[in-house]
């Protein structure tokens, strides 16, 4: 009996271990010998498209079929629901040395991915295999790597941030051109604001986790300041320019009263809702991906896009050396995991994915603007609504390519978050804002020091 129990215990142990190993092994990266296709298989990891489920199904099937026809290999598309899902997957894959062959990376996350050394640096030969750097709009390469010799990301989609405006309201107010300076922006928005009827010149979204820092960053760059110095060694969040940019951003609400006071608690979704309902004449810091939502609203056919101002508040022109910073270089890169055994297949996929046809298909399905010059030129030639994004992209400025960027970005976002109670009361204390920026600068500098060790 005792022996029987021992045997049964051993069986249980072996069975459990087998189950565990099987579970752990599932979903890991495959080499080129796996998969049902004779040409091997490739595993890519991209963002889910919860707003476009049917389009995603159609697009992914077409992509898979085309890839199969071109290479004979199977394509497995894994998706992530959120940035944190993606981050977690990258972390575990980098540590384990296995996982998807190709990752879709947000442009501001690319420096962090680069810092992990978990992605292949593309050689000139590699670039040739994917159509060459000249295939892409030059600015989109701004977040591919720290310099041309160390690029890991291939631009796959661009999402420059611009200004959406209500054309009817502009016409009614006699405004014929969109603002090119932030002073113009204030003047136009003041003209368009009628708080008595609940219509404001602009939307703002102080509670959004991503938009506020971009306002502050753009206004800082336009004054000749920086969040991170060009040599990536010094944080500039405690500079006068950043303080001016932050208070200038706050002034849009507290001093000029250009936005709904409730916008202190708004996120991007609230802002687009207000704009599409005609409660605001301008909707800054938006992308072409807003088009499907706006076209489902009464605003369809009554709005257009333009560049955000490129001259800081209180200035008529940019100081020498200051960047236009019409937008961050925004969008997606695709990068090849350094552990992949399918580099050639991965390059073939990237060549396909960034081709004119596929870039146009990506736009049709999800509204992602092409990084492929030919595709973007075709699009902007036949779609006047999109044409401004070509100009915006050309005036885009890349954010600092450092693994410490997350600390910088989160630090500024935190300044806005902790200032919200003051903003809700209609004012702010400049010294309190400066203290918050000083604290954020300390964290950012510490992170930069770690990056430069």
């Amino acid at each position, binding site marked *: 009996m005792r022996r029987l*129990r*021992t045997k*049964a*215990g051993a069986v*249980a*142990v072996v*069975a*459990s*271990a087998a189950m*565990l190993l099987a579970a752990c092994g599932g979903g890991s990266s495959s080499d080129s010998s796996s998969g049902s296709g004779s040409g091997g298989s490739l595993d890519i990891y991209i963002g889910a498209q919860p707003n476009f489920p049917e389009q995603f199904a159609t697009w992914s099937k077409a992509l898979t079929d085309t890839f199969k026809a071109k290479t004979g290999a199977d394509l497995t598309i894994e998706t992530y629901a959120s940035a*944190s899902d993606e*981050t*977690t997957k990258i*972390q575990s894959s*980098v*540590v384990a040395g296995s996982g998807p062959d190709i990752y879709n990376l947000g442009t501001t996350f690319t420096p*962090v991915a680069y*810092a*992990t*050394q*978990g992605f292949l640096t593309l050689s000139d030969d590699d670039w040739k295999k994917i159509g060459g750097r000249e295939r892409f709009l030059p600015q989109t390469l701004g977040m591919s790597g720290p310099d041309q010799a160390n690029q890991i990301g291939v631009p796959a989609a661009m999402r420059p941030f611009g200004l959406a405006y209500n054309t009817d309201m502009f016409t009614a107010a006699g405004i014929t051109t969109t603002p090119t300076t932030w002073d113009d922006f204030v003047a136009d928005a003041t003209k368009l604001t009628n708080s008595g009827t609940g219509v404001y010149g602009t939307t703002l979204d102080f*509670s959004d*986790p991503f938009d506020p820092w971009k306002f502050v960053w753009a206004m800082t760059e336009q004054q000749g300041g920086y969040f991170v110095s060009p040599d990536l060694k010094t944080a500039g969040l405690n500079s006068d320019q950043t303080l001016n940019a932050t208070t200038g951003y706050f002034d849009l609400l507290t001093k000029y009263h250009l936005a709904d*006071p*409730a916008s*202190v*608690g708004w*996120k991007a979704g*609230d802002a687009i809702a207000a704009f599409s309902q005609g409660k605001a004449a301008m909707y800054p810091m938006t992308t072409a991906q807003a088009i499907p939502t706006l076209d489902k609203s009464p605003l369809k056919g009554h709005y257009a896009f333009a560049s955000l101002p490129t001259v800081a508040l209180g200035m008529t022109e940019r100081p020498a050396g200051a960047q236009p910073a019409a937008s961050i270089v925004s969008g997606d890169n695709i990068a090849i995991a350094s552990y992949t055994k399918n580099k050639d297949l991965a390059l073939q996929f990237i060549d396909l994915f960034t081709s004119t046809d596929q870039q146009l298909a990506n736009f049709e399905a999800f509204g992602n603007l092409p990084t492929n010059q030919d595709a973007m030129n075709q699009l902007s030639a036949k779609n006047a609504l999109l044409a401004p994004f070509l100009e915006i992209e050309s005036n885009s400025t890349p954010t600092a390519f450092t*693994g410490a960027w*997350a*600390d910088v970005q*989160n630090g500024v*976002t*935190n300044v806005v*978050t*902790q200032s*919200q*109670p003051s903003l*809700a009361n209609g004012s702010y204390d400049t010294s309190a804002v400066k203290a918050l920026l000083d604290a954020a600068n300390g964290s950012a500098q510490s*992170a930069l020091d*770690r*990056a430069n*060790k």
Partner: protein
Amino acid sequence: MTVDEVAGAPTPLPPPALSGRAARLTSTHGRPLWLMWPNLILLTAVIVIPFLIGVYISFLDLDQYTLRKFFKAPFVGFQNYIEAFTSAGLLHSIWVSLAFSLLTTAVCTPIGLLAAMAVNTAFRGRFLVRSLFLVPYVIPSFVTATVWRFIFQPSGAANSLLDMFGIDGGQWLIGDRAFWALVIVDIWAAWPFIYMMTIAGLQSIPNEMYEAADLDGTTWFQKIRFVALPQIRGQLLLGLLLSTLAHFNNFTLPYVLLGSPAPTPALTLPVNVYQTSFQVFRFGLGAAMAVISLILMIIPAVFYLRASKLTAAVGED
């Protein structure tokens, strides 16, 4: 069942008197303990090993720059722990989480108790009411937080309601008020847990005890005070402990409700650990904060388990 039937029920035979060593041998060899092996293996793989790795990471300078080398990341001793206390806002987050968890448990307890007592006796529609009481608890935290986020918008339902009474609700999800918004939502979502623990305890009290109390002419309150509460003391204390720990560890609710970075007055420890680990990629520092969080959680749990003797072996007092 009548009192006579209870009195006439056969009394279970007492276990044979054995020495301590004999009892242990019997309890061990009399049962197929090998059946625990699958569970133990899985627990080791899913909890023990990750926990040990987490503790190890807490002594490393592990971040995005050293992630790939992982086990070769610089060993920094207790530096992460020191940094957690001195510059990562750990003490503030512990205070916020402690206040949050104690406050929500303190409010949830009377609500859960009263709800359980209200539905303990039969009445028409009791099943429906009992089911409805569980709704807040069974809704996923993510959904709860998302819905309440809409409710607490400046033009949301909460302010519309207050507006009917001439009160300007203002902004709920920023600054100091974010903490109170978090408390309100968590109370709404979590009180059914105390209700469930209480109702389970109340259901186990024999009717005879209430009948005996009735014979003594006790009031409703006295029955609660002297019959029900002493009988459910164990379940209630366990419920309070688990509830406090769950509130302390709640990540989803504050993260979804308030976003990240959270307002400082509502920066709970789990959200702080998340921000440190997965937003600025200080995995070593985040692990140190998580280990400290675990130690904090273990203290009340051990006290409770010792006090309730749940860890005592058979035959031990």
